[in-house]
């Protein structure tokens, strides 16, 4: 039996340690992982816990991220609680198996410490890897700081492992800005955390010898379409409902409130920035400054990226005059993902907000308060004049000539 750790009510943890501690408290059966910057400490801390007899489960060291996710798929199909962590190139290498995991309806939990994708090689944070996973059928949650990485790291098991949901879940956090920045994190004791998550309940376990199952079967034009429809349906309905239910239970337990989208200063807002990751916190500071100047500015942070909170965003933006979608991944030939997703929501509102797109922060380029102030200033001009006063897509804080499109 593993030794418990007596945590302080508030521990000083970075995002990686927060993720590792949530994994430890979940009493995972199998972790198969291949460390990669900046998520390395998630796995490193976890193996330290293992060496210190603070973990009962298996830790499988593999030869690549493809093997890591494959190991997770095997262990999860066999009938155990499973988790891992990765970043960037490792995430990219896992991609093939990500689709296997979701299609096989395996509740694997993965911490994705977001980092740019090469080339050029870059270890710093942006959302390229997060965007790469967005059609993979996983539930995707975004933590804006270490506290949220811990909280979502606990809640993920409860959401993902529900027998109606049975879909894998990623918890994203920004590389270095969250993963390596130590902050005060409010903790749950080992017992309280584990009781909240609950014991793992296997479903159709491959290793149930009384009812053996073949996982990962082949379907062609006869049933493949129906399988995908079922998966999409369950992600859109069951996963979403369960996520809200777990958020509510977590709030009852801890007082910390989570929702599909996090709204800050959105009451009566005329202008709003929609973004993800650590940028949400920076944007909040600037919005508060704007409010003191009488400018009704607000911020929406996307907490659950998949299933996409279509209704919630539509509702939150229905009276907002101008909105900026901040994308931290190169759209490579289009408007940004957030822009496009938001446009879909706004289109159904009686008075669609004027929408603009900002690309920023690629490869760890800072997004400063001044940058955001500039965005709000431009949004205000859009709101005041009732039309788009800037190009549709602009690149923030880019050296050289201004880059913009449409």
């Amino acid at each position, binding site marked *: 039996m593993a030794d418990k750790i007596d945590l302080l009510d508030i521990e000083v943890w970075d995002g990686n340690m927060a993720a590792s501690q949530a994994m430890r408290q979940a009493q995972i059966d199998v972790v198969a992982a291949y460390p990669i910057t900046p998520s390395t400490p998630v796995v490193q801390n976890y193996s330290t816990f293992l060496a210190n007899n603070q973990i009962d489960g298996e830790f499988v060291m593999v030869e690549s991220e493809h093997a890591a996710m494959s190991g997770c798929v095997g262990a999860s199909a066999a009938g155990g609680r499973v988790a891992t962590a990765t970043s960037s190139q490792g995430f990219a290498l896992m991609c093939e198996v990500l689709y296997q995991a979701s*299609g*096989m*309806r*395996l509740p694997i939990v993965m911490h994705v410490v977001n980092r740019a994708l090469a080339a050029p090689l870059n270890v710093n944070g942006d959302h390229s890897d997060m965007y790469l996973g967005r059609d993979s059928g996983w539930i995707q949650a975004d933590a804006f700081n270490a506290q949220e990485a811990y909280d979502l790291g606990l809640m993920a098991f409860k959401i993902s492992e529900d027998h109606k949901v*049975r879909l894998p879940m990623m918890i994203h956090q920004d590389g270095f800005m969250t993963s390596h920045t130590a902050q005060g994190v409010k903790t749950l004791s080992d017992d309280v955390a584990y009781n909240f998550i609950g014991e793992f309940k296997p479903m*159709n376990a491959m290793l149930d*010898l*009384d*009812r*053996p*199952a*073949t*996982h*990962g*079967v*082949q*379907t062609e034009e*006869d*049933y493949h*379409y*129906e*399988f995908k*429809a*079922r*998966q999409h*349906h*369950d992600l859109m309905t069951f996963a979403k409902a369960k996520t809200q239910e777990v958020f509510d239970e977590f709030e009852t337990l801890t007082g910390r409130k989570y929702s599909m989208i996090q709204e800050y200063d959105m009451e009566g807002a005329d202008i709003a920035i929609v973004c993800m990751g650590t940028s949400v916190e920076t944007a909040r500071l600037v919005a508060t400054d704007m409010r003191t100047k009488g400018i009704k500015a607000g911020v929406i942070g996307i907490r659950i990226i998949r299933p996409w909170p279509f209704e919630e965003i539509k509702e939150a933006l229905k009276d907002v005059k101008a909105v900026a979608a901040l994308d931290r991944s190169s759209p490579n030939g289009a408007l940004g993902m957030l822009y496009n997703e938001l446009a879909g929501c706004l289109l159904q509102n009686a008075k669609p907000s004027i929408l603009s797109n900002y690309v920023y922060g690629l490869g760890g380029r800072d997004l400063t308060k001044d940058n955001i102030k500039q965005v709000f200033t431009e949004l205000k001009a859009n709101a005041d004049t009732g039309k788009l006063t800037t190009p549709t897509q602009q690149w923030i804080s880019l050296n050289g000539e201004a880059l913009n499109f449409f």
Partner: protein
Amino acid sequence: MAKNENNGWNDFDIGALLFSFDKETKNIATTLQEDRPYSNSNSFTASVADWRVMKPVFNKEFCIDCQFCWIYCPDMSIISRDKKMIGIDMDHCKGCGICVEVCPTNPKSLLMYDEHLEDEEALIAAWPAKEEK
């Protein structure tokens, strides 16, 4: 995927999985294949005999029941009972020839022939003689 009556998107078990048996089983490892309650979607109920171009022919006369073919067969198509080789499951054998390759007797107790040669008695009557080494 085997077809069933209800084949709408909401009628399948979640996940890309199939159950080998229609009901719960006990001591399946010690139950002979022919006595197992295989489901319609299990490959045991499907014949893949037409995949074969070459087929193994078994000549009992030289067999020493070493079970090599049974162990090596990748499709569990060697039928063995009480540790005696009794034949080949021709519904599932794909004609890979591994059983012939691993057969240690002289002459071999299993040999590959063209699938279309139907008269096995004639093939066994013309079996090669022991090779002098």
